């Protein structure tokens, strides 16, 4: 169940240029949200930019009833959010959408994230208790690296890459994943599941790699949304059927899907 809520902002700060971390107090969302879910936030007053903006939940503090989201300033809506201060009220609906499968059977897991796709993966790492957690996160360059400490704290092994090599290993994060699971065979171990969120081409590659290595894989999709609650059918994504396909709703049927279901070429 999700609710329409008016919640108080606890803090909002810029982590690196253009990336904001916003924490709000919400008894309901903090207790009920599961990793992979999002909140749909009203980012305007009046009649411009009327649609709500979906933002993934990045972290929850169940004890203090706080919820944290991290967003990139891109246009009208996120610029409005960036100006919000502690004490202001956030008009949101949440928690929304499907969540990652965190079955206890998955003991050795990997998350693979790129850009703003890393945030829901942090929530997953925070919540998931298991034997081994590896986090692969990729950024454009060192100026964009955020939440490194939080990822380190919540995983057993953190692998960072930047496209230009200014921090961590140079190249795409999927290159490192490929080396790991195909060439090195992760020291005889295999991941039980890989969770991924980020740009489409990155996720497509992760799904291919996982499939080659016989590893389960879940992806978190994005689409422009109208209602965010499953009524308008705006947020379509192409899902394969046995010998056909159909459009499903990212907001309600997703955003989390099994990798092999998704047609990334649509």
């Amino acid at each position: 169940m999700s609710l329409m809520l008016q919640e108080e902002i606890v803090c909002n700060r810029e982590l690196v240029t253009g990336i904001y971390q916003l924490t709000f107090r919400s008894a309901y969302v903090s207790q009920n949200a599961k990793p992979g879910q999002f909140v749909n936030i009203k980012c305007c007053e009046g009649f411009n930019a009327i649609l709500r903006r979906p933002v993934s939940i990045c972290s929850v503090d169940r004890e203090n009833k706080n919820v944290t989201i991290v967003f990139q300033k891109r246009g009208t809506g996120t610029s409005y959010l960036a100006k919000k201060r502690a004490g202001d009220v956030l008009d949101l609906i949440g928690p929304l959408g499907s969540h990652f499968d965190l079955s206890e059977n998955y003991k050795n897991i990997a998350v693979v994230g790129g850009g703003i796709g890393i945030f829901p993966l942090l929530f997953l790492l925070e919540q998931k208790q298991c034997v081994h957690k590896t986090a692969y996160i990729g950024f454009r360059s060192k100026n964009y690296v955020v939440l490194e400490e939080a990822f380190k704290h919540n995983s057993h092994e953190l692998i960072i890459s930047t496209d230009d090599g200014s921090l961590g290993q140079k190249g795409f994060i999927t290159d490192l994943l490929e080396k790991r699971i195909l060439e090195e065979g992760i020291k005889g171990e295999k991941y039980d599941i890989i969770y991924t969120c980020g740009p489409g081409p990155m996720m497509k590659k992760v799904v291919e790699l996982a499939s080659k290595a016989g590893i389960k894989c879940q992806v978190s999709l994005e689409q422009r949304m109208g209602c965010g609650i499953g009524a308008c059918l705006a947020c379509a994504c192409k899902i394969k059927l046995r010998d056909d396909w159909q459009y499903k709703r990212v907001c309600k049927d997703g955003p989390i899907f099994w990798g092999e279901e998704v047609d990334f070429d649509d």
Partner: protein
Amino acid sequence: MTNIDSNSNRLEVDIAGIKFKNPVIGASGTFGFGREYSNYIDLNKLGGISVKGLTIKPRKGNKPPRIAETPAGILNSIGLQNPGVEVFIKEELPFLKKFNTVIIANIAGNVIEEYCELAEILSDTDIDAFELNVSCPNVKEGCVAFGNTVEGISEITKQVRKYCKKPLIVKLTPSVMDIKEIALAAEANGADAVSLINTILGMVIDIHKKRPVLANNFGGLSGPAVKPIAVRMTYEVSQTVKIPVIGMGGISSGDDAVEFMLAGAHAVMVGTWNFVNPNACIEVIEGIEKYLERYNYCSIYDIIGKLELNG
């Protein structure tokens, strides 16, 4: 002032013999099959629900992105994605019938025969009324063609009327030279009511990609941006036809709804604003009630068509 005793429901309105407990209806395509909104609001409180446009066979819909924003509005190109009439009857209608509200089946097709078939099939179910979608701008074939001309609207209304055993509402497109003559044609051929307006074809361009934002290039404009056009057309049509008019386009508050009703609408539909605020329909109902209270009216009929034009 109408004389109605204080126990009666002053928001009640009659359209083509159907009693609506209030004049506020969730607009087709923006309210799904009610299911998603039932998590947030009590559907029993609504005057009615017009369901997502139904076709005989399931439709996949258009390629995404299907939605873009414009100043004070949105553009959509959903392309009538729906599970088909059989699934609606089996899986969605029983759910909707649990609520005490009027259920309107919005139907669409590529050729007149499909509309007739839908009317025939659905006449045997317990939907309360039909809304003919002859004006969806987002499908390449069919649909839009019927709504554009007097001949088209006359023919489709006449044919569907033969198969339709329930009240028939014809939904009009604003993309015509003279909406009055289209409305008259619907009335003359058996429509019990008309609803208007459907969305207006528009385009939004991403200047960085130098491409339209919608995969379909064009989409239907709705939301507050279209309200003045919709109010004008509601006025024109209600001055022209004798059958009731259901007005819509950009309603986001009770005051907006009152504008439509003063212009002559017997009822209103709320569309885009449900996306912004799932509680929108309820707030519109409460807003109308407040307006009646403020001016001491004891019936909704005290405001319908009560506009006075300037000299």
